[in-house]
């Protein structure tokens, strides 16, 4: 069980980001080289792998990718597959990889709408939330179309349902706990399995960037 990390405040986040400015401007071509280890799971176009729950990377903001790699490297975010890769990356490589995936546009087919009731439940949570249970809408922070806001609020629209689901479960059970101000921890902790399935299914069916 990982310890709650001390990464709590925006001040810390700013300090970390400031310290992480790479020497040279991020470069897509260098990023393509540095991303070779990523491609096995996340694909060259960043499409990820829905069946295995590997996230799409093409829809994440570059700053978000950099931040997550930093968190893996520092151990704030834990994953046995990602951490060894992240530990081997320097700041320049992280920035280049982020630039590379930021330039991709993966062709991921929209998942078929199989369960209308589930999607309707998801739509409600995503756009309205459930305030009687202190669950704000996803759009409150992740953007009007859930395509992300800045470095802190990743894009969700078009992401694989398997990944969204596993991350919400991870926030809920505490295996992921590096969010600024516990913002996600608080929300996911109040979601039921059914909420999580519904929100993930709906978000996955939305158009990405």
């Amino acid at each position: 069980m990982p310890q709650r990390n001390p990464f709590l405040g925006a001040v810390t986040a700013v300090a970390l980001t400031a310290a992480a400015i790479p020497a040279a401007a991020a470069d897509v071509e260098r990023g393509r080289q540095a991303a070779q280890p990523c491609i096995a799971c996340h694909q060259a176009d960043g499409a990820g792998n829905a069946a295995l729950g590997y996230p799409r990377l093409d829809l994440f903001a570059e700053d978000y990718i950099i931040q997550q790699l930093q968190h893996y490297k520092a151990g704030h975010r834990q994953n046995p597959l990602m951490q060894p890769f992240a530990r081997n990356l320097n700041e320049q490589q992280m920035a280049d990889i982020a630039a590379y995936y930021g330039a991709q546009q993966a062709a991921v087919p929209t998942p078929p709408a199989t369960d209308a009731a589930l999607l309707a439940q998801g739509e409600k949570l995503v756009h309205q939330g459930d305030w009687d249970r202190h669950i704000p809408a996803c759009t409150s922070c992740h953007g009007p179309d859930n395509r992300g806001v800045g470095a802190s609020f990743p894009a969700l629209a078009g992401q694989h349902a398997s990944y969204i689901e596993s991350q919400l479960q991870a926030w809920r059970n505490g295996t992921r706990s590096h969010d600024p101000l516990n913002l996600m921890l608080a929300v996911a902790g109040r979601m039921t399995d059914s909420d999580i399935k519904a929100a993930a299914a709906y978000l996955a069916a939305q158009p990405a960037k």
Partner: protein
Amino acid sequence: MYSRILMTTAFSLIMAHSAQAADKVPVKLPDFEPEQYVHTAPTLADLDADESIHPELRKVIKRGYDLFMNTQQLRGENVFNDMSCRNCHLGEGRKHWAAPIWPAATTLPDYRGKNWQVNSLEERIAGCFSYSMNGKPPAYGSDNMLALVAYHQWLARGAPVYEKNIAGRGFGKVADPAQTPDYQRGKKVFQENCAICHGADGQGQRVNGVVQFPPLWGDGAYNWGAGMARVDTAAAFIKHNMPLGQPGKLSDQEAWDVAYYINAQERPQDPRFEKSAAYTREKYLNFHRRTLYGTEVNGRVLGEHNNTGAKPFLKPEALRSRTFD
């Protein structure tokens, strides 16, 4: 009897939620007083399910909901800053301690100390447009005003008229701070807890031109006549609603300090401005004794300017006095 049953239900719901989330991030909100009326406002799903509602009325209520959630659609016409109703009235205007809007439908017309006269529901809504949205209210009796009124009234379904002892009304109160609210301490609280969404400069964030997180001061924010400009009101809103999803996270002192810091920044002029900020403060002291308007903070008098933000006038005509003498 009705209210007591509702109250018991609401209590147990709150307990259940607190318990569920307690191991992660607890929700800390004030308890309701035993004799208070506890209202559970209906949801949009309830509206769709209620066959007694005429389809045309349902349409109007939904129009009101849509205006309430995205008031920016009236930008340049009725709204001249970056605010929508839902930014202060969280949870679709239904949420306890986030200034639920339905009590306006069951308690108005009533006398309001803010303008020393009896106000209708439309006039109360006009107040929000004039101050919090630094704008010009939709005309009394207009389609949009009707739609907003209809949404308020729908949320009040089943609530007793003129019952004023209402649980979770307004933003609640935060106990007086142990230390006088302080700008520098408030700035630190802001940077650590608010800046991630509202920006280090308090100017909020936009996504493709759409307001995502509203600015808290400056031209895009509520003006000097808005209820949120009162330090105690802002402290209560923050304490019981911020950061989003974490009611009660900040200590009372932190809530006061950050409310002071935010409300010690400049914002568009009070539409009631006359002569000078000091004069206006004195004239509306019943309101402004709770704001920093017309007082000196960090070497300058707040509100001593003629900046009305993006609004090309000072005072909307809708703000008018009446007398029955």
